[in-house]
């Protein structure tokens, strides 16, 4: 052990360790002195505390991400070497492949990843492909250089001994290119984890990317930092492991390097050991906690009344799991899907939402919003809304109380912070105008994904659009002094619409209406139960997505219990809502004029749907 300590060369890694300690201390003090709110920048101490809270959860996510990164990097390395050999051996191929190889690196992964999800589904494959695409380039380029740098005279010498091509490959080319190969692999390994996380960002059921998005959407910046720290540590560890491998595979390199300069890589070894120990600790702390795996009702549970056949159903959420989805999780948790012979898998999507997955057939159902259904249909993907998850729109516009905004007309002369969508703009303008204000006096600021609380407090804008059932609850919890304009109070001015709703595809309705009915029956039961017992709904959601903030989930579940279906059975959609909202979009020039509204929705598959309002049947060829 003492020999090991000596080999670790404390003197070499102590200075950088001290530097990191000093930086962390400065961070901690800075946050305390300037009283930076934790949702802007949490102090390291809080991040450590948060790490303690989520350690058990992280183990499962870490294993997922690490698996994706490792499989990806191996795939990328194999492909990279194959490419390198082809490029090196066939000069023509070099001219063909090089531009493509370089071009492949210029495609932003964040753009490519959602497409990969559409092509390869939501499993391991798209993440592996992202990592492999990241890894293939440095490995290929570096290996080509390694092969090309083979000593011509050395090869001649072996030929003079009567060596054939295989001997030369074995004796000169392979060992000669090995250090270059590892140089490429080292670069790839530094990016592999981040690549896997990007892949998870756009759709996953487990992994650190999922942990990050969920932490972010439940406003836990401290946990976001925990995720980032884990990603960094894993990347450093992977880098270190590749470095160790390269030393084992090319031991002469170290001797050659030592002849020139003594490089210090002991710090990496130390980091690897630390992370491995930490990972082992995290694992043993909560064995078998594969938290991220939120889906899959045990298919072994014998389905009743379906002749034993288990039908697989994939449900795509619209965002990270939240209380809008609690009926789904409750039905899953209580085994109602399994009872109906359904093996339901719930998947968290990325930014693009779930409708493209419906269109591509990767998902059977998707949580979406009314304003997304019609444009997707216009693009030729016949998606059909089969239930309103919440009976009416629970959005609000909020501002800090100090702005003195009491009614829509007051919004004139203020700045609205949003995504810059046409619908947002049109709604805000309509509200202001209807209340006698000047819509042209509203300034629209595009802010993207900035946390609305930070945006208001830091004065990026004056008012913002939120959902009462989630964002609103959070604001109540933090006790921010705000005024709010509820959409529901102004349905005389603006239309109501369904956000969120549950959609499926026309193909599934035509091909297996029984499946749709069975799924919807169990789902409706889930939501009805969520209305009766909000705490059960919260439990089911938290069990599936323990990364969420528990208080927020419980409060939100209680709030939504009164909102899901205050006036009747859950899920029922009204023709008037569909017609009026579509007309509103058409008048604003947002939607095309020739939309078949009736084909876009149905109550047919709801247990309460028969005879309910406006049951046009899209099955009749909508």
């Amino acid at each position, binding site marked *: 052990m003492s020999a090991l300590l000596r080999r670790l060369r404390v003197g070499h890694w102590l200075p950088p360790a001290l530097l990191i300690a000093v930086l962390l201390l400065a961070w901690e003090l800075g946050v305390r002195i300037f009283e930076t709110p934790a949702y802007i920048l949490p102090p390291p101490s809080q991040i450590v505390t948060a790490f303690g809270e989520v350690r058990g959860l992280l183990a499962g996510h870490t294993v997922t991400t690490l698996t994706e990164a490792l499989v990806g990097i191996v795939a990328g390395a194999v492909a990279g070497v194959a490419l390198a050999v082809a490029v090196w051996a066939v000069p023509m191929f070099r001219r063909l492949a090089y531009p493509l190889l370089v071009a492949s690196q210029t495609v932003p992964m964040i753009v490519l990843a959602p497409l990969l999800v559409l092509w390869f589904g939501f499993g391991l494959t798209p993440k592996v492909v992202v990592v492999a695409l990241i890894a293939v380039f440095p490995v290929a380029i570096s290996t080509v250089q390694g092969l090309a740098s083979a*000593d011509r*005279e*050395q090869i*001649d*010498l*072996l*030929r*003079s*001994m*009567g*060596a054939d091509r295989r*001997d030369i490959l074995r*004796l*000169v080319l392979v*060992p*000669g290119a*090995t250090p270059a190969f590892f140089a490429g692999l080292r670069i790839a390994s530094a990016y592999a984890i981040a690549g896997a996380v990007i892949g998870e960002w756009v759709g996953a059921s487990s992994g650190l990317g999922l942990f990050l998005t969920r932490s972010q959407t439940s406003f836990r910046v401290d946990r976001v930092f925990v995720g980032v720290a884990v990603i960094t540590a894993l990347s450093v560890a992977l880098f270190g492991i590749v470095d160790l491998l390269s030393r084992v595979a*090319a*031991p*002469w390199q170290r*001797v*050659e390097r030592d*002849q020139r300069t003594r490089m210090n890589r002991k710090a990496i070894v130390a980091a690897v050991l630390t992370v491995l120990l930490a990972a082992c600790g995290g694992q043993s702390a909560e064995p078998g906690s594969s938290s991220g795996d939120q889906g899959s009702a045990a298919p072994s549970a014998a389905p009743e009344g379906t002749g034993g056949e288990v039908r697989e159903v994939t449900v795509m959420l619209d965002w990270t799991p939240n209380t809008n989805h609690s009926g789904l999780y409750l039905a899953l948790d209580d085994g109602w899907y399994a009872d109906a012979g359904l093996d339901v898998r719930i998947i968290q999507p990325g930014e693009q939402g779930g409708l493209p997955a419906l269109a591509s057939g990767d998902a059977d159902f998707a949580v979406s919003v009314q304003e997304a259904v019609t444009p997707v249909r216009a693009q030729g993907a016949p998606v059909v809304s089969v239930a309103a998850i919440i009976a009416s729109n629970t959005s609000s516009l909020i501002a800090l109380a100090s702005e003195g905004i009491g009614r829509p007309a007051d919004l004139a002369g203020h700045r609205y912070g949003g995504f810059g969508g046409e619908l947002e703009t049109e709604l805000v303008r309509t509200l202001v105008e209807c209340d006698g204000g000047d819509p042209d006096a509203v300034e629209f600021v595009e802010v993207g994904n900035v946390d609305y609380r930070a945006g208001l407090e830091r004065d990026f804008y004056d008012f913002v659009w939120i959902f009462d059932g989630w964002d609103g609850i959070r604001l109540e919890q933090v006790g921010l002094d705000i005024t709010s304009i509820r959409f529901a109070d102004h349905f005389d001015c603006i239309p109501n619409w369904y956000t969120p709703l549950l959609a499926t595809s026309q193909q599934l309705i035509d091909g297996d209406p029984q499946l749709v009915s069975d799924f919807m029956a169990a789902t409706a039961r889930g939501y009805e139960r969520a209305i009766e017992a909000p705490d059960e709904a919260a439990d089911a959601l938290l069990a599936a997505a323990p990364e969420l903030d528990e208080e927020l989930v419980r409060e939100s579940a209680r709030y939504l219990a009164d909102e899901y279906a205050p006036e009747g059975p859950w899920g029922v959609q009204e023709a008037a809502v569909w017609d009026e909202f579509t007309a509103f979009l058409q008048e604003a020039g947002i939607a095309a004029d020739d939309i078949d509204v009736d084909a876009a929705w149905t109550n047919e598959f709801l247990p309460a749907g028969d005879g309910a309002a406006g049951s046009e049947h899209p099955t009749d060829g909508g």
Partner: protein
Amino acid sequence: MISVDGVVHAFGDVEVLDGLSFDIPAGCFAGLVGPSGCGKSTLLKVLAGLVVPDAGQAMIDGHSVVGRPGRAAYMAQRDLLLPWRRTLGNATVGAEVAGVPQAVARGRARELLDRFGLAGFEDAWPAELSGGMRQRLALLRTVLCGRAVLLLDEPFGALDAITRRDMHDWLQQVLADDPHTVLLVTHDVDEALVLSDVVFVLSDRPARVVERLSVDLPRPRTSESLVGGTFVTAKATLLEALEKGRA
């Protein structure tokens, strides 16, 4: 024995060998001197089977080696040790290519390590060896190829004068114990005279043989040989021939 008959070669427009012919009997140590860039190395590569001449014949022990490597053991100017092989692995690489079982090759290499001044360095990487050791290892590798003919291309060119002198003494001993037919390319007239039974002097490019000189100095040749009258006369002859060969 080595036999070169009318070998002509050009690299593109540059004529390098201009109908070279000579014979070296078995067991003879022949030196090949000539101006820089005159084609000495090319000639050695022809004999090693690495360069196919435009015309002419090159034979070793009665077999044509034109385009057929593997009949002679060749050693280039650089030691060309494989950086990824330790001493023993480098020494046995020729045997390995020839299909000699590894255990046998290593056994033979171990026997010769002491003789080649490499005892105790069996497991060293090339990067850990001194220049002289690297050169002796390269020679050991050449000898262990198990060929009767050695083709040595300025093997000591990169060494300092003292190390080089030691290597001369040492090589003579090695060859006394284990005779080979040797063709040594060098630009060092002293080296050629100390080591060779016969010295060929080549002209400037394109190379022809301008002088064939038998060196009748007794063996083993020591540093005293270098100051004797015979040596001085031979050296004068060689230098004169070199001068004559310059265009």
